[in-house]
């Protein structure tokens, strides 16, 4: 069996202690550019204590409710982001994922794409899912390019679902089926 589920070319996956995670998340939360690419809820400033409580409540879910991973860069070992496979529907074998690279120095250099490849391998090879779904804000063009690269297909747009900075924009829906992933894997 090929057991390299947690190691990619540029990144590897870990579970972090909640203190380490809370410190990283706190830092990333203060970058409003990062947060506006990642989440719909309005930006707020949270103490590290509050972030830790939120992680322990919402992120340390027991499988199969959610599968959450932290991402570290192989070179330098820096904690750079996370991804999660949520709402894994046992009967339908689908999941809605979230992914974020919190360190801006690691944007646009292939780290997110490498992490996504690990996510897809895990979804299809270990969770045996039939498809992986995601929603991404239409203005997050860098992420959308990365998702196309890893094989996701456009499935539609939820019109006017976001109002930010006085502008309305869409939320884009993308998905990849197992057979598409199998063809795409080098």
């Amino acid at each position: 069996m090929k057991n390299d589920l947690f190691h990619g070319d540029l990144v590897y996956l870990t579970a972090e202690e909640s203190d380490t995670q809370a410190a990283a998340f706190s830092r990333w939360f203060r970058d409003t550019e990062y947060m506006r690419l990642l989440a719909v809820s309005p930006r707020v400033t949270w103490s590290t204590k509050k972030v830790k409580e939120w992680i322990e409540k919402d992120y340390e879910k027991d499988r199969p409710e959610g599968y959450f991973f932290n991402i570290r860069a192989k070179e330098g070992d820096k904690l750079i982001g996370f991804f999660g496979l949520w709402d894994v529907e046992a009967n339908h074998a689908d999941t809605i994922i979230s992914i974020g690279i919190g360190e801006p120095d690691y944007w646009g250099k292939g780290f997110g794409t490498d992490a996504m490849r690990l996510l897809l391998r895990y979804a299809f090879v270990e969770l045996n899912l039939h498809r992986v779904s995601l929603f991404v804000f239409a203005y997050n063009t860098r992420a959308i390019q990365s998702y196309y690269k890893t094989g996701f297909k456009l499935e539609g747009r939820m019109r006017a679902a976001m109002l930010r900075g006085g502008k309305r924009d869409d939320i884009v829906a993308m998905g990849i089926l197992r057979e598409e992933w199998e063809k795409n894997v080098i």
Partner: protein
Amino acid sequence: MDIHKQLFVGPSVCLGPIDHEKDPPIMSQWTHDPEYLRLVDIKPAYPISAGQIKKKLEALEKEIEESKNLYYFTIRSKEDDRLLGFATIRWIEWTHGTGWIRLGIGNSQDWHKGYGSETLGLLLEYAFSELNLYRLGAEIPEYNLGALRLFEKVGFTQEVCRRQALNRDGRRWDALIYGLLRLEWEAQHEK
């Protein structure tokens, strides 16, 4: 604005609160009909007792209170106050003005009588004119032809096709997302 217009009353249905004593046994009966369950939910069809439903309804009211982004109504027949179904607006994002609609008429004998249509009309009025939302969404399995017809009739557009997202009866089905914007709904009502 016509302040005399009743937001929760239609020609044959009323939207109202949960009756924690009377509703659980009826709702439990609905969960013994797999056809209903498979139309209204993607979770595996599974029967639930009145006692368990009572607990779920209590948890639901707590969630409504705490989350402040969820509205839940029971649908009752105006004529005899009989419980017909439920309707919710959930996952509301206030800063974006968006919400998701879900409704169900529990007993198949009550289908095709216009109750869903009337309820949806009341819900849209409530969402757009009272909650001042900008956009409503609904996720509908492709095999739920009744719901597709109903939502299309009131003006929802198909926006997303989540291909093969559902697996039932040994085959794959698409999960469709439909959307309706307030300005589209207002335009219809001006006619």
